[in-house]
């Protein structure tokens, strides 16, 4: 079942949508239903049978694992080992999936300089590469809006521009997950599959998420993305340095979002977008460190936050030079 399931491609989906009754798709659908039943029987009723391969066994253990927050250090190590082994079996990839905990005394904050951003979108492509975002669905955590002077809400800007930048008399505003202190999304989740870490990063446990999308409806900033199909990243483009709560390859039907590049920032590096920005419009740092750049910005620049009136307390400030 699992091997046939992996061979998803765009043409099949298009085919399904356009020719509901073609014989080929009917047979595929029917064989899939049969495969599901037989696999469920094989895996469910006789887990110890000889036929069960290593992959099935690992998958089975993965299926019944706990929410990440309830795992002991040993359980975290085991699940990571299983995920790495599964990637090796399935795609022959050597992944390094980390479980770095939050660093004590750190609360991450982000600044975005609207006088500097010129809409080059280097941040967007860096983010896609770093975070293994679905190339097929063109998933983007970061959106850049071309703004008319006098407006400060990205909702009034143009998020679909496709021309040479910067344009005279326009300015640019980026959005992404704002990692709200009072996040509406974490409150909405019925299974506690998404939460705010002690260092302020709002994360998703992809394996615990049930895909109900209530968090997506609750987010006032369009900060969340859903894996409508199985995400696809070309094998040679996969970023193999991963984090369990960060850029590891997501299953289909799960929610994902910006994690301030948790796999980098918890090792003291900057998020990919900050590093990629050619104009220096992006500032990232520890809000609890009085000497950090983000603290300098908050204390010396004119800053504002998007939709302050909602009381979500985002840790993402726009500022003007």
């Amino acid at each position: 079942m699992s091997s046939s399931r992996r061979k998803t491609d765009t043409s099949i989906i298009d085919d399904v949508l356009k020719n509901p009754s073609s014989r080929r798709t009917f047979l595929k659908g029917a064989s899939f239903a049969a495969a599901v039943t037989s696999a469920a029987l094989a895996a469910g009723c006789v887990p110890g049978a000889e036929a069960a391969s290593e992959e099935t066994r690992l998958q089975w253990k993965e299926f019944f694992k706990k929410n990440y927050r309830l795992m002991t250090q040993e359980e975290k190590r085991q699940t990571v080992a299983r995920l790495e082994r599964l990637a090796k079996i399935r795609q022959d990839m050597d992944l390094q999936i980390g479980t770095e905990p939050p660093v004590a005394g750190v609360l991450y904050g982000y600044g975005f300089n609207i006088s500097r951003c010129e809409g080059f979108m280097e941040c967007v492509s860096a983010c896609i590469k770093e975070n293994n975002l679905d190339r097929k669905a063109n998933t983007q955590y970061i959106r850049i809006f071309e703004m008319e002077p006098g407006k400060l809400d990205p909702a009034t800007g143009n998020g679909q521009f496709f021309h040479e930048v910067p344009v005279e008399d326009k300015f640019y505003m980026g959005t992404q997950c704002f990692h709200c202190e009072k996040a509406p999304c974490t409150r909405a989740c019925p299974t506690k599959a998404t939460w705010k870490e002690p260092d302020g990063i709002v994360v998703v446990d992809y394996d615990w998420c049930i895909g109900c999308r209530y968090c997506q409806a609750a987010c006032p900033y369009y900060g969340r993305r859903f894996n409508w199909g199985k995400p696809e990243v070309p094998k040679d483009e996969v970023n193999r340095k991963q984090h369990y709560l960060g850029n590891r390859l997501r299953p289909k039907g799960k929610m994902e979002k910006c994690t301030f590049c948790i796999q980098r920032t918890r090792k003291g590096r900057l998020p990919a977008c900050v590093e990629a920005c050619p104009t220096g419009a992006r500032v990232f740092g520890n809000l609890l460190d009085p000497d950090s750049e983000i603290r300098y910005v908050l204390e010396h620049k004119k800053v504002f936050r998007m939709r302050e009136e909602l009381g979500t307390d985002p840790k993402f400030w726009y500022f003007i030079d």
Partner: protein
Amino acid sequence: MTALPRKNLLTFVLDVIRWNLKGSIGFQLFRIVLLGCMGFGIYAYSFQARYGLAVTGMNDIVSWGLYISNFTFLVGVAAAAVMLILPAYIFHDPDFHQVVIIGEGVAVGALVMCLTFIVADMGGPLQAWHLIPGIGIFNFPSSLLAWDVLVLNGYLLLNGLVPAYILYSHYRGRKADERKYRPFVFLSIFWAFSIHLVTAFLYQGLPARPFWNNPLMGPRFLASAFAAGPALISLILAVIHSTTTYKIDRSVFHKLRLIIVISAIINLIMLFSEVFKEFYFPTHHSISSIYLFFGLEGHNSLVPWIWVSVSANLLATLVLAFNPGKNNPLVLLPACTVLFVAIWMEKGIGLIVPGLIPSPLGEIVDYLPTWVELGVTLGVLALGITVVTWLIRAALIIEQEYGMNR
């Protein structure tokens, strides 16, 4: 009235199955059509299971579509059973006592559909066990969705067990002990209001979506449900009256009409109040309503939908209120159908989809369900109708037999 020998729980279940497998050719044909629809639903769902929700018309902007729309509306249909339960059990109204079991059957069918729609909408249905308290994690009381899981399953239990107890007693030729089931009836009355209020709060509690973040939503859900639900029950009663030997008193229909008219009028007043608020002085919070009623930047797929719904709603309410045919069922029953469909259009797609458009970042897209969504929806509706017919058929046979022996 001595209890017949060899009537126990096992024969009860077997008899229910036996009665349901028998029937006229027309009835069997009806069953086969339903079975075919369910088969098609499973076939459509197999694509979703394989390729994910990518085969639906939903996307990151319109992240809820036909499934959640139908779910929302059907919660109302389930809640509406209280309009029969309240007068039947609490006020001992003899007319409603005759039909309350049918109302409860409809509620169970509607709830089965609700829960199936939720599972169909989930990206990870195999992870649904994460919701079960004890083995999973239940984000209670913070998540309104957790509340909804609780109240829907609780209501299903109440509406399944109380009638099952009464029917089983009657099946064995005994009178059901009112002291035993009355507390649960009281509970189910409060519960009925709670399922629809909690479902409304699911949307109402999201400041991110101004179209939903509206204190009138809960009360309006109730009003529309108490119009659409009894309208559906009237239609079902009419079908039962004309196709079975179980005859429904005319006064039942009269009383139901009153309930429908009052609820429909309250619903229209609240609709007017909402429309007034959105359009007298439109703010940026009115943008979803503008999209719904007039379209935005060339995107106007819901405009005909909502206008048809509102006009049909108005027309049906007027017909039911003024009763031009002098209780002629050929006038009232089509009016009930029109009212039911109109409220389905508005409280389903007309409520869920515009709440998500435009996106919080101002992007406007249109939503159109794919054949997969339509197929799965058809299958779920067929499942619900099947459940309702099974329950009602068994209930009517037992009640008739009990009524004759008494």
